[in-house]
């Protein structure tokens, strides 16, 4: 598999590769594979020798990416990933040079898999429980059981992201997306594109999942001016638009098509509209956009001409706000659309 994993990693974007890492270790847990199998999987997925210091059994296991056993002691200089619940046990990758993009994730998931396997029971994995808790088709009894096993009682914030950098204890995959459950209403980490929703009661997580999906559709890319993390509860009436209008329908709206045409030659168009709609003054909008306010004024004059309405005033402002919102709806589903991949037979 070393080869096959390597091949597939190159093909896919990072999120898909990361999801495969998560799924791989989940399956090993579901299948009650051996601890050695988990370490070999880490080596194969990382393309680097991996090791486990197993404190309870006082043994060291090291494997090459093609699964060969290596003898030898702990190599102390590698970064240690502790195995949760097993004091003194840790995993490492013997990576010469820079870390691979998935190294941290591989170690983390491998460590959690070892933790899950060490319980000696045939309980479903944590991510399996997360999936059941969020699954609208699960029975109430199964959901109640999953929620209890996850230790969730009060409100839960559900975060749905296109990024595998969403790190949390309770994490799983839903289609091509990563879902994390955060007890309470904590601050959501930035640096990822995500939608979030709060389930006031953990048994309402399936609803929160749908709401987070809606919020994600309105989330902008990381690094842009518009927020990359959108909370459903902040949307209010805006949520209705994202819920009721499909990406295709939004893309077909005349004002959205016009934005798209203008963007082709003027990549600043949507950011500019976002800034002037979001900021109280032109001066502050210009600061946000890192342009001189006279430049901004020129752009807005040009935009008014091109759009056929003035995006800063009255009706025009509303129209521009809705157009930008719909533009996001039109663009927000690229990842989610591919969620339900059929599994072809081999």
């Amino acid at each position, binding site marked *: *598999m*070393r*080869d*096959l*994993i*390597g*091949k*597939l990693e*190159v*093909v896919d974007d990072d999120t898909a590769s990361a999801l*495969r890492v998560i*799924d*791989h*270790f989940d*399956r*090993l847990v*579901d*299948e*009650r*594979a*051996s601890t*050695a*199998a988990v370490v*070999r*999987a880490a*080596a*194969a997925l990382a393309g680097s020798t991996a090791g486990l210091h197993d404190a309870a059994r006082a043994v060291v296991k090291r*494997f090459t*990416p*093609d*699964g*060969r056993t290596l003898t030898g002691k702990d190599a102390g200089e590698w970064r240690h990933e502790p195995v949760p619940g097993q004091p003194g046990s840790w995993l490492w990758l013997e990576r010469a040079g820079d870390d691979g993009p998935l190294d941290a994730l591989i170690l983390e998931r491998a460590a959690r898999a070892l933790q899950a396997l060490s319980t000696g029971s045939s309980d479903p994995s944590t991510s399996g429980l997360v999936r059941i808790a969020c699954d609208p088709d699960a029975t109430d009894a199964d959901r109640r059981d999953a929620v209890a096993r996850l230790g969730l009682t009060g409100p839960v914030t559900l975060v749905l992201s296109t990024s595998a950098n969403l790190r949390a204890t309770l994490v799983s995959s839903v289609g091509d997306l990563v879902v994390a459950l955060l007890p309470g209403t904590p601050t959501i980490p930035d640096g990822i594109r995500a939608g979030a929703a709060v389930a006031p009661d953990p048994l309402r997580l399936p609803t929160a999942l749908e709401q987070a999906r809606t919020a994600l559709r309105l989330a902008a890319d990381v690094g842009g001016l518009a927020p990359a993390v959108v909370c459903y509860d902040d949307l209010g009436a805006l949520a209705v638009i994202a819920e009721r209008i499909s990406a295709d329908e939004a893309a077909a709206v005349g004002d959205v098509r016009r934005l798209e045409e203008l963007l082709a030659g003027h990549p600043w168009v949507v950011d500019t509209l976002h800034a002037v709609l979001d900021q109280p003054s032109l001066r502050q909008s210009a600061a946000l956009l890192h342009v001189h306010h006279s430049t901004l004024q020129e752009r807005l004059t040009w935009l008014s001409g091109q759009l056929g309405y003035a995006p800063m005033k009255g009706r025009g402002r509303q129209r521009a706000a809705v157009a930008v919102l719909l533009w996001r709806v039109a663009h927000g589903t690229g990842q989610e659309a591919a969620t339900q*991949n059929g*599994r*072809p*037979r*081999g």
Partner: protein
Amino acid sequence: MTSDQIFPDTPTRPPFDAELTPVLEMVRQHLPAFTEENLAEMRQQTDEGFPGMEPVDLTVGGAVRVEERQVPGPEGAPDITLLILSPAVEGPARPAIYHTHGGGMIIGNRRLGVEPFLSQVADGNAVVVSVEYRLAPEHPDPAPVEDCYAGLVWTAKNAAEIGVDPERILIAGASAGGGLAAGTALLARDRAFPKLTHQILICPMLDDRFETHSSRMLDDEGVWDRGANLFGWTALLGDRRGGPDVSPYAAPARAEDLTGLPRTYIDTGSAETFRDETLSYARRLSEAGVSVDLHMWGGGFHGFDMMAGHAAVSRASIATRDEFVRRALEG
């Protein structure tokens, strides 16, 4: 015959090995289904590799000389291409590993599956000759197996030219390549040329009849399930599949006489379509007085050790086979 008639039931199967399971899922998500519509895509994927993937370095960093020859095909048929991999360091004539690639008789090329034998070439122990045979359904039986045989004949007759000892040729192949290797070995025996020292049949595709338990037990599961297998055999044999007019060279499980075949290594996973035809062929070869090494790996899906080489069961399978090849090449 409808598939309901061919597969009246779905008998039970052993579980897949726990460590192999995640890889199996990945494979199933990424490989297109074996159907007529997907044929072009499957061939392209096999020929080009996955986009962005590094191709296998056949030269092993310069230790292996890579050469291709156009040689005569069967009488009246086009020439065929042989991929010839020989040690870069000159030496005495070496044993040859004549390789027939896999791919269900319908996909694949001469480079597919030679990698496991490369280290023997790099170490100066063997020359690998891999044949580009014509594929079904465009070229149904007997084109594939006759191409394989023609390439073998050329290799034996021109052994000196490519640094091969013509008395020490073994044949090896996996999956459909295993079936073609077995069929070519039968042809070589019946036509009394050339002599083969060993046949290495890796999870071989031997039987077109779907009468065994394992040939029916995988329905949209594992790798190369019964539907894919039916597609492959039908591509090769058309309406003749399963009927009385199939030659043993196309489906070696049909050969009534297995005497005089070369020393055999044959293996299979316990959770694959070809399991029972492999076990049966091994038993019948043994009954015919052929020396056989048989290995069945519990929980293995079709091709498990090629796709999940890191897993413990794969390590065991690869090490066992490599050791047999090493001994075979020692003579």
